């Protein structure tokens, strides 16, 4: 009994210490990335290539998901709003939900699954096959050459993807509300235009997706960089990327929303 308790306590302590250690190691990696910032602007081609593989290749899943999310919003919103006789406000509902919440959050979740896992697996494998070591021996910093470009690419891609998500989502909502359900097209757009505020809604949404971009990309990079150099190590790291990014996004979303509404 006592032994079991002691074991449980010590394993809890071990986990806590390891968690703190990993946060520290992640912060150190982040500081190196910032340190190599000037290096990156000397060679923008590296970032462009990474924007292609993280951002552009995520386009399809983002657009398709956004369209469906928008259509569902249109249906559900219409269903509820018409009970109060205000089905013209459907445009407002769709746009606000997307721009303030669903755009940044769902994009970040999809990004973690599509681009984050790819980043983690790629970097973990590069480490396992000594490619990062070889780079170091050639006096090329792997942080400057491999990690930093992927980081900035992720940070740049995320807000753009989120904006695209919101845009396509609105189109999805329009597609359901106007041609299918029969809401007046003019009312759909004009109410939306009147109620969506640039600073309160759009800027806040973009800020959220920027934060998510930093966090998701950083988690993916760190997990890959820190993965044990084995097949099992890389596969676990990939799982952790998805789990940790999703939790971080949802948790941060609550905090950011509270701050933005409070402010």
């Amino acid at each position, binding site marked *: 009994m006592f032994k079991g308790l002691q074991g449980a306590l010590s394993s809890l302590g071990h986990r806590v210490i390891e968690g703190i250690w990993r946060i520290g190691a992640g912060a150190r990696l982040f500081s190196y990335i910032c340190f190599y910032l000037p290096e990156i602007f000397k060679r923008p081609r590296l970032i462009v290539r990474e924007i292609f593989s993280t951002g552009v290749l995520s386009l399809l899943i983002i657009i398709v998901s956004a369209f469906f999310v928008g259509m569902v919003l249109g249906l559900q919103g219409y269903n509820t709003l018409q009970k109060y006789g205000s089905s013209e406000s459907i445009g407002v509902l769709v746009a606000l939900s997307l721009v303030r919440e669903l755009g940044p959050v769902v994009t970040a979740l999809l990004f973690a699954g599509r681009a984050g896992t790819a980043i983690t697996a790629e970097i973990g*494998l*590069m480490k396992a*096959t*000594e*490619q990062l*070591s*070889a780079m*170091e*021996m*050639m*006096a*090329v*910093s792997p942080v400057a*050459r491999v990690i930093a470009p992927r980081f900035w690419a992720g940070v740049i891609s995320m807000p753009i993807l989120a904006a695209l998500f919101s845009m396509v989502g609105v189109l999805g909502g329009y597609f359901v509300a106007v041609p299918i359900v029969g809401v007046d097209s003019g009312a759909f757009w004009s109410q939306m235009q009147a109620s969506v505020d640039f600073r309160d809604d759009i800027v806040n949404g973009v800020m959220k997706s920027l934060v998510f971009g930093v966090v998701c990309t950083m988690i993916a990079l760190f997990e890959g960089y820190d993965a044990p150099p084995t097949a099992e190590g890389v596969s676990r790291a990939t799982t952790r990327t998805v789990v940790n990014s999703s939790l971080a996004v949802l948790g941060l979303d609550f905090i950011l929303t509270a701050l933005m509404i409070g402010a």
Partner: protein
Amino acid sequence: MSDNIVEIDNLSFGYKGRLLHKGINMVFPRGKVVAIMGGSGSGKTTLLRLIGGQLNPNVGEVRVDGDVVHKQSLDGLYQLRRKMGMLFQFGALFTDLSVYENVAFPIREHTDLPESMVRDFVMLKLNAVGLRGARNLMPTELSGGMARRVALARAVALDPQIIMYDEPFAGLDPISMGVVCNLIRSLNDALGATSIVVTHDVHETFTFVDYVYFVSGGVVVAEGTPEELTNSDKPFVHQFVHGEADGPVPFHYPAPDYKREVLRGHDV
């Protein structure tokens, strides 16, 4: 300027407490090809990593061109590494780049040469390892031996002063083996470089190196020119040169007594 480009002084190093090197002393004179030989797991790869500054010694130091490696700042370390080229035991080619781009990588990173000159350099190196025709292949399309030859071309792409080869002969057929021996020797002499060759291929190695260190149990157990060692009657040298399993060089990773472990298995 010292005559030795690399000096290892009383170096001790261990992973997780278990000491792997226990006071190693070696010198690598400029212009020579020096072999480090020892059994599998005797810490040869680790020794190369210590020279390259990827690991720090517990005791002692490694000096490269007069500078203590583990006391360098990050910048200093990178400056030192630009004098070195290393062939990794498993090649470590960049899997997202073609053969050509792999060899071009260090050139592009460290120089601003125009593309036509990069091309000339890369072709020269690929031709030397007999793989000019494979330049457009990706690393996954190469055989193990071809990959190592590409890695070799990449290691010497910038004509380094110190070239470290980790098992350059592993996975090569007898013809490529002879070619690689000649290549190591001629690159060394043409560049005026110093080569450190880690290997356990006694017969092949003795034909072209200038000096040999034998490591075992964490210390240098024998050293000398190939002639001296061939005629040596020291037991470890004899064991190694003639490939005998029994002798002072242990074949087994440190373990409890085999008989006792087998019997314990029956008790459980």
